């Protein structure tokens, strides 16, 4: 396994300029090891979504450094030209809502990326089915997303995030729309994946049900991160 992880130092992000400038991120320092699941919590407006977008290469930070594994992707400026390829190959996204493509069935939703990238449909679907099996939703492989439950949908979304075996998974409130049993199932899945695939996982949340499960947490408040030790409670 490669020693991928996330390392952020002195990252800041300012929207606007002059008097109207908003300093969403002031000083962010973070490090996540491969195979580790880390929680990122903070009140509304604290900048956690902005941080996630920076990490996901969706918006550009203002200053600082970001490493994805050994690769420096940002150092006061993008170090990589094709951000979309970066997103596709290095980062798996899991969102608050699953955002599945409604006109594709479960299997094709998961297999979409490699199929669009020109891999053979059969190969991509094979891989997708494996992931669905891992996530225990293989029996829904041919159903349309609209026929799935919320937990199932979220797991499909996770499977989609994993299809390219990314070293990093960014999960934005993945359990917000779920009851506690399903929420815990999703977190356990993420933990399993982190362990099995040696993936660094960041879960942005303010869900009290799952906060106790993290071994390590980052608090973000007014654009500044504070690291703290979590309870690391076992999920049964």
């Amino acid at each position: 396994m490669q020693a991928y992880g996330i390392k952020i130092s002195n990252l800041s992000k300012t929207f606007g300029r002059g008097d109207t400038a908003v300093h969403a991120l002031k000083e962010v320092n973070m490090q996540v090891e491969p195979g580790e699941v880390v929680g990122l919590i903070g009140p509304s407006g604290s900048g956690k979504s902005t941080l996630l977008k920076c990490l996901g290469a969706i918006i550009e930070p203002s200053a600082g450094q970001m490493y994805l594994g050994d690769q420096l992707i940002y150092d006061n400026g993008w170090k990589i030209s094709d951000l979309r390829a970066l997103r596709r190959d290095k980062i798996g996204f899991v969102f608050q809502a699953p955002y599945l493509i409604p006109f594709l069935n479960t299997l094709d939703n998961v297999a979409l990326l490699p199929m669009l990238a020109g891999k053979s449909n059969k190969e991509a679907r094979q891989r997708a089915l494996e992931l669905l099996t891992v996530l225990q939703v293989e029996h829904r492989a041919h159903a349309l997303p609209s026929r799935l439950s919320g937990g199932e949908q979220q797991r499909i979304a996770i499977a989609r995030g994993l299809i390219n075996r990314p070293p990093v998974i960014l999960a934005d409130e993945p359990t917000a729309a779920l009851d506690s049993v399903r929420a815990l199932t999703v977190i356990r899945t993420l933990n399993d994946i982190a362990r099995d695939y040696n993936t660094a996982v960041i879960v942005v949340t303010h869900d009290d049900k799952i906060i106790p499960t993290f071994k390590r947490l980052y608090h973000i408040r007014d654009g500044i991160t504070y690291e703290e030790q979590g309870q690391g409670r076992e999920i049964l």
Partner: protein
Amino acid sequence: MISLAGRDILHAWGKFVFTGVGLGLLIGVTLTMAGVYRGMVDDAQVLLDNSAADLWVVQKDTLGPYAEPSNLPDDTWRAVANIPGVANASNVTYLTMQVSSASGETRALVTGIANSGPGSSGWPLRLLAGRQVSKNHYEAVADIASGFKLGDSIQIRRNRYLIVGLTKRMVSSSGDPMIFIPLLDAQQAQFLKSNDAIAQNRRRISQNPIFNNPRNPEVLDAVLDLQESNTQVNAVLVQLKAQAEPKQVAEDMRRWLRLQVYDREQMEQILVGKLIATSARQILMFLVILAVVSAAIVAFIIYTLTMGKIREIAVLKLIGTHNKSIISMIIQQALALGIIGFMVGKIAATVWAPFFPKYVLLVTQDTITGLIAVLGMCVLASFVAIYAALRVDPADAVGG
């Protein structure tokens, strides 16, 4: 490779087809409008085709016989036939009038044809049923658009005519069906007033001592006879010998016979350029507006279709889909919509065209132009949608 467009269409097939059908009906209306315009022009053309003439000899300084009244003595054709280059010349009369039969009445262009046999100028070019006129009185060949049937007996002025043949697409420039009757009858019909009018006229003349002179009772009869006979025709149709030069022959006639002569080109100019010009331009204008409106609606439909999927597009972008895939999805959908719409439109236009009271001519050229325009429009419209899709920030998918 997976076809996103195909999967999306398949997923929302009903909606897609209904949108396509709606769009198709609109395209059908546009195609029909083009057909109406072509039909109008074609009405004028077939009138000229059907006369089977190379030259039209009409009264001097008139645009006759279709656009303006024209009268010639009915022996003019002899002089015309003597001009070098003329193969044959025949009299013809045209009279637009109401023709009635037991089953109803219709407006028709009653054409008097000289007794020169089938294939002569002025005669119906070909029949759909029955036969050509073979008696020189009281027989008629009618266009099927008149609604008359073989064996019907129709009333033109005072006389009854037996329908012996039916034609198709023999119409006047305004689309009225033509009815062919022998020339002598037509001349009479053209002049014949109602019996009351004739009686009144006779009374009036007989009270005039100049005409009703007791010393010479024959004068009255002669005058009345003169008043009630008609030796005029509307035009002489001329067919030329193969090697004759129409312009030259026409010039000879103008010069020596002091008559107005038109060749096919000039006649077309008169009919299309003068007679139906305004109404045709009216239709054309409407067609242009309809085409623009259709184009706008196509653009709007495709834009809406894309905007309905903007969230999915944002997700696709977020998870790293190439722009290429998104563009091709939008364009493929737009083209599919255009093709379905075009097919529905073409079918619709063909199905409802025969129900129009006047001729609707769906030209292949127009159909092809229509197809290209529709597809071009779809591509153009999808550019707007593509621009909107590409501008979508993937961050929108993540939310606040």
